[in-house]
C-alpha cells in the first residue's frame, strides 16, 4: 500500500539520470519524498515540518553534493536524523532502598494494564520487589484484569476493596509498599481523555500524593496525528518522565513515536511487542527509525530469530548446508524453524530491502499453512525416502499424498522445492562463505544487512523463501 522512502528517492534520482551529484531541484524533490514518507508513517505534520527543515540544512551541505550515490546517501541522512530525534532510551530511574512509584497513564485502550504487568515482571526478574495496584475504578473489571495478570505471572497485586476510590487505593498501596519493603510500586491508572478536566485533575492529585519516580505515558504505536496533542497535554498537565510504545508487534509504521518524542520532550523507554507478559523490550531508536522509513526491522528480525530458533539445530543444518549435503530431513528441520518464528509473511517483510516486494510477498503462496502442508508431506515419507528423495516415483507419490491428505501435485511441488533448495545449497558450497555473503548483500543492498548476515541464526532461514521475494 505504501511506497517506501527508499523506493521514492530512487525514483527521484532515476529521473535525474546518473548526474551523480545532488542538484538544488533534486534536494527539493527529495525533501518532498521524505515529507510524504513521514506523513504516510503517521508522523504529525508540525513534527514533519521541523524535521524537513533540519534535513534541508544537512542535505544542502557539501558532504552530500559529492556523494556518489545520492539516493542512498539521503536515505542514510534521514535515517540518522530520525535516530537522533527519537533519542536514546534509558533505564528506569529507581532509587535504592525506597518505594519508587511508577505511575502508568494514558488514553483508554492504550495497553496500560498489560504494560504494567510486563514492567512489573521485568523489574521482578531483575531482582526488585514489586507491588502492582490498579486505580481504575471506571472500566468494568479493570481491577480484576490486573489481579488476574498478577496471579498468572506470580506478581504481587494489591487486593481489591470494592467501592474504594482511586486516591484511597493509592494511599493503601503506598502503605502496603512501605510495609512490605517493596522497591517499586506500579500504579495502573484508568484510561482517560487528555481533555477530560475532571479526570485529569484526579490524575494530578494521584501524582501529588504518590510522588512518583517515573510518570510513564503508555501510547499505541498505531496512533495517528493526534499523538502530538495527547503527548503534549499529558506532559503539560501531569508531567511525564518517559513514554512506552505499545503494539509495536503490529504493522503500523509507528510515526507517532517521533511525534510524541518531539512534543513531550521525554525519552521513549520501552516497546510492547506482544500480548505475553514478557513481551516488553528496551526502546531502540534504530529499529523504530527503520520502520518509519519502511526499511524493515532488522533488529526485530534478528531478535526473533535468536529467541525462537534452536541454535544447535540451526548450526547443524547450516553445517550440512555448507557441506553440500541436504536431504528432506534438513528441509523439514528448516521449515519447522521458520514456522517457529511466527508469521512467515510478516517475517519476510522485516528483512531490509524486501519491504519493497511486500506486494509480491502478499500474492505469493507463502504462508504458515503451506509450510504445515509441506511438513505433512515429508512426514508421510519413510526414513529411507527422506534420505534419498530420488527413489520417490509414481506409486510412492500416491501413497505419500494419501498419507498427508494432499494431492500428488502437492507432493511434486514439495519435491521441486526440495530440488531447488538442494541446488542452491550446492552453489553455496561452491561459493564458500564469502561468496554467499556477497550474494546476500546483492539481494539486500541496505544498511543493516551486514549485521544480519553475520548472525548464525539466519542460517536457519530458508534461502528459497528469502530469494523468492526478489523475483
Amino acid at each position: 500500500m505504501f511506497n517506501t522512502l527508499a523506493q521514492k528517492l530512487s525514483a527521484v534520482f532515476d529521473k535525474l539520470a546518473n548526474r551523480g551529484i545532488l542538484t538544488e531541484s533534486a534536494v527539493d524533490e527529495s525533501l518532498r519524498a521524505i515529507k510524504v514518507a513521514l506523513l504516510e508513517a503517521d508522523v504529525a505534520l508540525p513534527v514533519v515540518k521541523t524535521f524537513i527543515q533540519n534535513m534541508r540544512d544537512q542535505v544542502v551541505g557539501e558532504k552530500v553534493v559529492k556523494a556518489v550515490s545520492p539516493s542512498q546517501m539521503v536515505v542514510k541522512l534521514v535515517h540518522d536524523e530520525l535516530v537522533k530525534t527519537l533519542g536514546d532510551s534509558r533505564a528506569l530511574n529507581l532509587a535504592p532502598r525506597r518505594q519508587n512509584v511508577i505511575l502508568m497513564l494514558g488514553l483508554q485502550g492504550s495497553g496500560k494494564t498489560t504494560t504494567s504487568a510486563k514492567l512489573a515482571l521485568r523489574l521482578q526478574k531483575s531482582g526488585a520487589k514489586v507491588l502492582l495496584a490498579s486505580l481504575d475504578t471506571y472500566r468494568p473489571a479493570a481491577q480484576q484484569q490486573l489481579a488476574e495478570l498478577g496471579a498468572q505471572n506470580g506478581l504481587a497485586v494489591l487486593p481489591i476493596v470494592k467501592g474504594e476510590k482511586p486516591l484511597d487505593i493509592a494511599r493503601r498501596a503506598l502503605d502496603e509498599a512501605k510495609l512490605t519493603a517493596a522497591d517499586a510500586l506500579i500504579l495502573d491508572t484508568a484510561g482517560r481523555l487528555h481533555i477530560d478536566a475532571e479526570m485529569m485533575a484526579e490524575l494530578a492529585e494521584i501524582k501529588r500524593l504518590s510522588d512518583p519516580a517515573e510518570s510513564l505515558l503508555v501510547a499505541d504505536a498505531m496512533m495517528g496525528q493526534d499523538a502530538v496533542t495527547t503527548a503534549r497535554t499529558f506532559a503539560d498537565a501531569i508531567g511525564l518522565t518517559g513514554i512506552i510504545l505499545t503494539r509495536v508487534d503490529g504493522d503500523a509504521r509507528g510515526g507517532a513515536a517521533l511525534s510524541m518524542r518531539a512534543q513531550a520532550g521525554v525519552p521513549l523507554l520501552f516497546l510492547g511487542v506482544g500480548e505475553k507478559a514478557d513481551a516488553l523490550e528496551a526502546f531502540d531508536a534504530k529499529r523504530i527509525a527503520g520502520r518509519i522509513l519502511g526499511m524493515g526491522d532488522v533488529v526485530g528480525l534478528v531478535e526473533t530469530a535468536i529467541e525462537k530458533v534452536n541454535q544447535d539445530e540451526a548450526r547443524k543444518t547450516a553445517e550440512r548446508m555448507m557441506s553440500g549435503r541436504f536431504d528432506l530431513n534438513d528441509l523439514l528441520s528448516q521449515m519447522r524453524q521458520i514456522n517457529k518464528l511466527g508469521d512467515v509473511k510478516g517475517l519476510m517483510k522485516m528483512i531490509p530491502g524486501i519491504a519493497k516486494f511486500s506486494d509480491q510477498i502478499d500474492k505469493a503462496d507463502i504462508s504458515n499453512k503451506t509450510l504445515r502442508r509441506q511438513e505433512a508431506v515429508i512426514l508421510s515419507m519413510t526414513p529411507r525416502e527422506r534420505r534419498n528423495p530420488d527413489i520417490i516415483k509414481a506409486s510412492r507419490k500416491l501413497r505419500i499424498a494419501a498419507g498427508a491428505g494432499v494431492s500428488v501435485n502437492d507432493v511434486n511441488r514439495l519435491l521441486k522445492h526440495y530440488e531447488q533448495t538442494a541446488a542452491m545449497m550446492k552453489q553455496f558450497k561452491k561459493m564458500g562463505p564469502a561468496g554467499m555473503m556477497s550474494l546476500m548483500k546483492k539481494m539486500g543492498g541496505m544498511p543493516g544487512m551486514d549485521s544480519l548476515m553475520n548472525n548464525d541464526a539466519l542460517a536457519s532461514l530458508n534461502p528459497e523463501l528469502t530469494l523468492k521475494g526478489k523475483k
Partner: protein
Amino acid sequence: MSWLDKLKSGLKKTAGLFTARTFDAASVEELEEALIRADVGLTATRRIMQDIQSKKSRESDEIRAAVGRVLVEKMQPVARPLTIDAARKPYVILVVGVNGVGKTTTIGKLARQYRDQGLKVSLVAGDTFRAGAVEQLQLWGDKTGCRVHAGKPGADAAGLVFDALAASRKAGDDVLLIDTAGRLHNRADLMDELKKIVRVIQKADASAPHAVELVLDATTGQNALTQVKIFQEMVGVTGLIMTKLDGTAKGGILVALADAYPLPIHAVGVGEQADDLHAFTAAEYVDSLLGGA
C-alpha cells in the same frame, strides 16, 4: 450534552482547524494541512483537493462550503445505521477489531440500544484470552439486563460461540452479540482463529453471522486502512464502528476509508457510558472534521 456538542467540545480544545474563506494558494494549503492533521491521509486528501478544484462553481464561493459539500457527498453513502432483520432469530452480530479499540464497551452500548428497543439480547464473552475480559462483559450484561454466555478462561472461543448460538436460539433471542479477543491483523494464527469462529457460526446457522462489525479507534492513523483491508479479507466485515470520537482525534481516516472501501459506518462512540453510541451522520461528522462552521 448532545453527542454533537461532545464532539464539538472535544474539537474546540484544539486550535481552530480551518478558518480560511476564499480560494487562494494559502487557503488551499491550509485546507490540505487541516485534512492531513485530521488523519485523512495523503491519498484521500489529494483526491478531495482535486474534487474541490473541479467542482468549484464560482470564484466567490467560500472554500469552507465547497470542501464541506465534497466531503458530505463522499460520506453520505456510507452513513447507514445497522438495521436488525427481525426474520433472523437471533440476529447474530460478530464484533471484531485490534486490541484496545473498545469492542467490549461497544457491545455494552449496543446491548443497551437493542434492549431499549424492546429486543431480547444475549451476549457471548468470546474473548477468552485477555485477563478480565469475561468479567468486563459480565458487568455490562448485568447493567443492561442481558444474559451473558461465558466459558472458562482460555477455553476455545469457537466452541463457546457454537453452544451460545444454540442456547440463544432456544431462548428465542432477537439479537446475539459476540465479543471476540482483540487481535492484530498481521497475526496469521489469530486471524485463522477468527475465521474458525465464523465457520462454526455458519455451521449452526448458514445465514449467520448477519453482521460483522469492525471496531476502529478514532486515534488510529493510517494503519486503520490495513486493518479494514485484512479483517475484510479474512472475515467479511459488513460495517464499521468508530470509537473514542469524544477526544481530540478527528477520525479523518473514515474519509480515506470511504474512498477505499464502500463499507457502511454503522455507529460512532463518544464516551464510556451505555448511551454514548450514536448513528453516524455525514453532515455532523464533516462539521466536526472541519472545526465547526
